[in-house]
């Protein structure tokens, strides 16, 4: 196989129909860019799950009566609630926080807003039991068991709130993947069409090649490579788009969330997203090219 021959055929092929080639590359770029965006979504969600779920607690707020009169959680019903939580299989640890400590924490959290701290009185804050679970995802059971028990004002599950948040992110991720899929379909059709047009415009050449005894590799590899080259160019442009998107848009938006959503690092884009996009582009273009040649182009 003479590489120089195949290479020059590929270049002429791509240049022969420039508008079509550009359309093919751009569609592939959009599709792969969306796919990469979806993968970054997944990566971000994973990162957040790790950092959030570790800290997720169920907080059992105690009634005013206990908050005011049972400073150390030694009387009833506080002591037995605490005991039963500690005995629970799913619970990792239980920490009691009395009214004074709650006030201290409140002051710490709202350090930056003295007027708020000014307004708050320790008497307004309930004492609470901070419960850490082995598996934060199973907080639902606890919530049901302790809500409404004597001595319990209400049970607050951070996981519930996070769930809603993650659902939003998951929906964003799914939407991105769906658009990526539709764009991929358009890219595949364009690739198939370009190859057919390309094979048709080169039918004289291919006819002569067949006649002088060129193998299938020689007659068809240029078409296949044309598709693959366009696919790879599309992947590279898609990646470039993602990097640009990160610096121009995402960095600012994510910074505005105050760290609630972690920043997307350049390394996240380069690995594993970049090799995945390149791999996908090569596989899709090569398979589409191969099938098209098999079905529509006589050897």
């Amino acid at each position: 196989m003479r590489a120089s021959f195949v290479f020059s055929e590929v270049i002429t092929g791509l240049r022969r129909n420039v508008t079509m080639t550009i359309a093919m590359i751009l569609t592939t770029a959009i599709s792969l860019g969306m796919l990469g965006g979806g993968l970054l979504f997944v990566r971000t969600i994973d990162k957040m799950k790790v950092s959030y779920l570790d800290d997720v607690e169920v907080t059992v707020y105690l009634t005013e009566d206990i908050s005011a009169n049972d400073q150390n959680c030694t009387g009833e019903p506080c002591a037995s609630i605490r005991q039963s939580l500690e005995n629970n299989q799913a619970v990792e640890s239980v920490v009691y926080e009395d009214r004074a400590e709650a006030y201290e924490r409140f002051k710490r959290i709202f350090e930056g807003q003295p007027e708020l701290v000014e307004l708050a009185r320790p008497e307004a804050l309930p004492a609470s039991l901070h419960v850490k679970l082995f598996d934060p995802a199973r907080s639902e059971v606890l919530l049901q068991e302790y809500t409404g028990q004597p001595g319990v004002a209400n049970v607050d599950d951070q996981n519930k709130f996070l769930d809603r948040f993650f659902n939003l992110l998951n929906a964003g991720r799914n939407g991105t993947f769906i658009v990526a899929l539709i764009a991929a379909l358009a890219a595949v059709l364009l690739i198939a069409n370009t190859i057919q047009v390309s094979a048709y415009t080169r039918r004289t050449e291919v006819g002569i090649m067949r006649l002088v005894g060129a193998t299938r590799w020689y007659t068809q590899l240029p078409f296949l490579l044309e598709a693959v080259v366009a696919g790879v160019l599309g992947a590279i442009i898609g990646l470039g788009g993602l990097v640009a998107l990160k610096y121009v848009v995402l960095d600012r938006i994510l910074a505005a969330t105050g760290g609630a959503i972690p920043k997307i690092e350049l390394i996240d884009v380069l690995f594993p997203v970049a090799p995945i996009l390149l791999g996908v582009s090569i596989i899709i273009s090569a398979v589409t090219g191969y099938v098209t040649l098999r079905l529509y182009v006589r050897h």
Partner: protein
Amino acid sequence: MIRLDSVSKVYKTSTRPALEGVSVDVDKGEFVFLIGPSGSGKSTFLRLLLREEAPSKGRVMVSNFDVAKMPRRKVPRLRQTIGCVFQDFRLLANKTVAENVAFALEVIGKPKHTITKVVPEVLELVGLEGKADRMPNELSGGEQQRVAIARAFVNRPLVLLADEPTGNLDPDTSQDIMLLLERINRTGTTVLMATHDHSIVDSMRRRVVELHLGKVIRDDKRGVYGVGR
């Protein structure tokens, strides 16, 4: 070199067989005219040898290749031992004369140094040594056919098939082309030429196989075009 054994060919879209019970034996180094009226099956005959078509019945041998039975992936090797020339030249308009000839070698993977050596040689053989860098549209019909012959011959095929190679040329130019084909035949290449051209067949006095409605009706060792009719 070439043997057809009771070969029939019925195209899917037609009822009348294009060839019917054809048996022909051609030795190495022979020069054979294939004649007959339009539609008699001459091109079909040549296409069977190239495995452009498969016979409906019978056996086709070219050199050591059992043409009808060979697997598709071996067909390129068969075609590398056969050179082809057509009435319409089939040159690539965007390549020079030398590039057109080199193309036939490039696409079968011949090394560059071989190509740069043999292309000028074959261009000299066909009498185009000064015109290597011309484009096909800067050549006369006869010259274009010489390029096509050079391309067919550059890989030194065992067999040269020519389907009405003089069909688009005036009588003088046709004579020149025939001299060239004779020269190629003298190198030991078997030549099979389909033609309508009476005067060429009559003047060459070579073997003539006449087809009529797909059947061989005459096979003369040193024939002319129209005996008995």
